[in-house]
């Protein structure tokens, strides 16, 4: 049984902060398919388009029929632990600091035998359920989990290395004024967050859910993502204890290029949605990177909430979507820059949300509670890409099928 994780004691300032190190990072190109699946929390393996054989480790040709037509496909995550070991000694600097480490050999119901990390609650020769997770290096690793839930299973020290679980972590919500802030705060609090801070722009200006935030115990601090000085000031005070940063700041107005007479709104959209992200990252990023492996409440993740239309524009919100496309692209750069520290970037791409500026659109829309649930679940599974709501899931599927066809569909031209 997993021991419940205890809230960490206050940090002893004389103690060394663990220098971020990474588990082995190099992978073949074929193996990156597993990382792509892990980024979304899917357990997928290559299977042969000709003979159907499921393959592992990832490869370039089928080991049964030599076909080079291998496709990544979700497969049955069930399996049985064939053998196991607890490793006590290694020459790798990352694992050295985390010994002992349990691994095992798992016979998958889908066919192959895999070497996997083994959760502490898996029994000897027991049945397991495979999770495909991203490790601190941002690469996919397979984790053999107990078949059913066990008490405190998320607290397993090996598993926690692969996730960004909010439990016992201190979380900064960038924009208290965003109507989704109370739902985010509630969900994170329920997930065990130790402390919630929210940035409040223009504190003199009232907004309806301020009392709700206060009632949830959220510490409201002045910060406006368009004002570098205010971002730096808050980072100076709270940067050293920000374990998860949720960038929910958003400025949006409807309309494409011609619907607007000037660039005023576009400038605001870029200021908040794109440069706001950059300001936050420049102020909070270095400190979070330095603390990315600082024990139970290490810095763990950076979350951006973006519209899924960043992938493919819809002219009804054309300029806003463009600013989100810029932010999405910037997040990829940030993800690479954070990788050396093992800090992850999670983008939650949502369909139209239940708020004022999307009012003319028909349902389904993403409610605040559903968005908050996606954020928390994504952190608990250590995901990189979360598609929240039916519209987002539909759009990304069509995007993967053919981005150009999708562009035509969205910009007119289908019956």
């Amino acid at each position, binding site marked *: 049984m997993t021991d419940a994780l205890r809230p960490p004691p206050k940090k002893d300032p004389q103690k060394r902060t663990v220098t971020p190190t990474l588990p082995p990072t190099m992978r073949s190109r074929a193996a990156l398919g597993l990382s792509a699946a892990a980024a979304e929390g899917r357990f997928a393996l290559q299977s042969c388009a000709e003979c159907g054989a499921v393959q592992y480790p990832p490869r370039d040709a089928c080991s049964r029929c030599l076909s080079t037509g291998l496709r990544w496909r979700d497969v049955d995550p069930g399996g049985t632990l064939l053998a196991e070991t607890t490793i006590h000694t290694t020459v790798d600097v990352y694992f050295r600091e985390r010994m002992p480490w349990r*691994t095992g050999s798992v016979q998958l119901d889908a066919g192959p035998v895999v070497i996997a990390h083994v959760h502490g609650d898996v029994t000897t020769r027991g049945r397991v359920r495979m999770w495909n997770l991203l490790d601190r290096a941002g690469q996919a690793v397979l984790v053999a989990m107990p078949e059913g839930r066990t008490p405190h299973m998320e607290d397993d020290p090996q598993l926690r290395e692969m996730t960004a679980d909010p439990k016992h972590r201190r979380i900064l919500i960038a924009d208290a004024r965003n109507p989704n802030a109370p739902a985010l705060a509630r969900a994170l609090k329920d997930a065990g967050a130790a402390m919630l801070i929210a940035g409040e722009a223009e504190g003199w200006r009232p907004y309806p859910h301020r009392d709700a935030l206060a009632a949830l115990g959220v510490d409201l601090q002045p910060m406006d993502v368009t004002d570098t000085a205010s971002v730096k000031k808050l980072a100076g005070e709270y940067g050293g204890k920000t374990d998860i940063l949720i960038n929910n700041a958003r400025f949006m107005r409807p309309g494409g290029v011609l619907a607007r007479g000037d660039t005023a709104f576009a400038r605001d959209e870029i200021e908040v949605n794109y440069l706001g992200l950059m300001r936050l990252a420049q102020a909070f990023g270095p400190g979070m990177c330095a603390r990315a492996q600082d024990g139970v409440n290490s810095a763990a993740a950076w979350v951006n909430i973006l519209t899924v239309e960043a992938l493919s524009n819809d002219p009804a919100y054309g300029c806003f979507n463009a600013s989100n496309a810029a932010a999405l692209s910037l997040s990829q750069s940030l993800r690479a820059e954070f990788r050396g520290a093992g800090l992850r970037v999670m983008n939650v791409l949502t369909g139209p949300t239940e708020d004022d500026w999307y009012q003319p659109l028909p349902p389904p829309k993403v409610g605040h509670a559903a968005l908050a649930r996606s954020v928390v679940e994504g952190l608990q599974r250590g995901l990189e890409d979360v598609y929240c709501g039916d519209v987002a899931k539909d759009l990304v599927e069509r995007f993967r099928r053919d981005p150009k066809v999708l562009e035509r569909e969205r910009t007119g031209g289908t019956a």
Partner: protein
Amino acid sequence: MARRRQGYDGVVLTAPVTVPYQRYSIDTAHFWIARALRATLDAAGLKPLDIDGFSVASFTLFPDTPVGLTQHLGLCPRWLDTIPMGGASGVVALRRAASAVQAGDADIVACVAGDTNQIDSFRKLLSSFSRFAMDASYPYGFGGPSANFALLTDRYMTEFNATREDFGRLCVAQRANALRNPHAVMKKPLTMEDYLTARPIADPIALFDCVMPVAGAEAFLVMTEDEALRRNLPFARIAGAIERHNAHVDDPIQLRGGWTMDRDELWDMAACAPGDMDLIQTYDDYPVISLMQIEDLGFCDKGAAPDFLRDRDLTIDGDFPHNTSGGQLSAGQAGAAGGFIGLVEAIRQVTGQAGPTQVKGARRALVSGFGMINYDRGLCTGAAVLEAA
């Protein structure tokens, strides 16, 4: 139906040499290979240009290959080979060289294996060993081969009711042998108590189940029997030899090796049986694999090695002399030379040149190789039966 392997009539092995191992070396693989080559040539009274075949096994030559070595060492071979097969490299080198001599592609082949071991060599070698290992085993705790063998050992123990004492008996006997080998890296006696209480490495593997990486080199010459007679060199004959790669792919975990596919032909070729061997040399990077070789080469049934060994004495003077130089477990693992250590010692044994580790009246030896944990199992297996002239 595959055709039968040809024998190696008229081809012999001679001039076995071991360059004494060192725990760490500031020198390169080139240095170690040069020393082994020089020593084997000296043993036969030859000069570098007298050999026309050259076979090399090494992990740490980068960025060179044996091609670069010909220029580096001043050789002009008409037959050149590289053996990237780790623990199976000795048997494979001997098979290929013997075929080359038989075919007239070369008259005298020098087979050399050597590696250096600098500080951090081992970690670097592990980090770039194979693509499957890089993708699918290192990221899982980076336990190296110890973690792989821990899984096999765990499964072997439950499948066949083996105990740690069963493995310990083999390790303890090899240490006793090593104490008679002045060049063995391990010089202290090992008791069963020491073995059982050693610090854990990757359960159930503990310290004395593991080899110590060292720098070192091994070499021998392959030539025609006439050539050896003319030069008055003591030589061993190759009664039979087999190799196999990636056998038993459907076994979920490795409890047997490719030897099982070829052993009948090996004993047929050699016209003898396991019981006729005066000594055996198995590849012993971890004791479990030595037990599997003893089973898979027909000394006992599958899973019966623990019982089989319980009743036997594995030391030099015992009734089942095994890894007489101390093997890798006690003499050290010098990279690819770990694939040669048993073969070179066996040549010494059947030619009566083993000195302090000599098994009395040794005329027949089995040598077995096992190499390359590409992902979850060793892929290369080989074995040879050597006979005194």
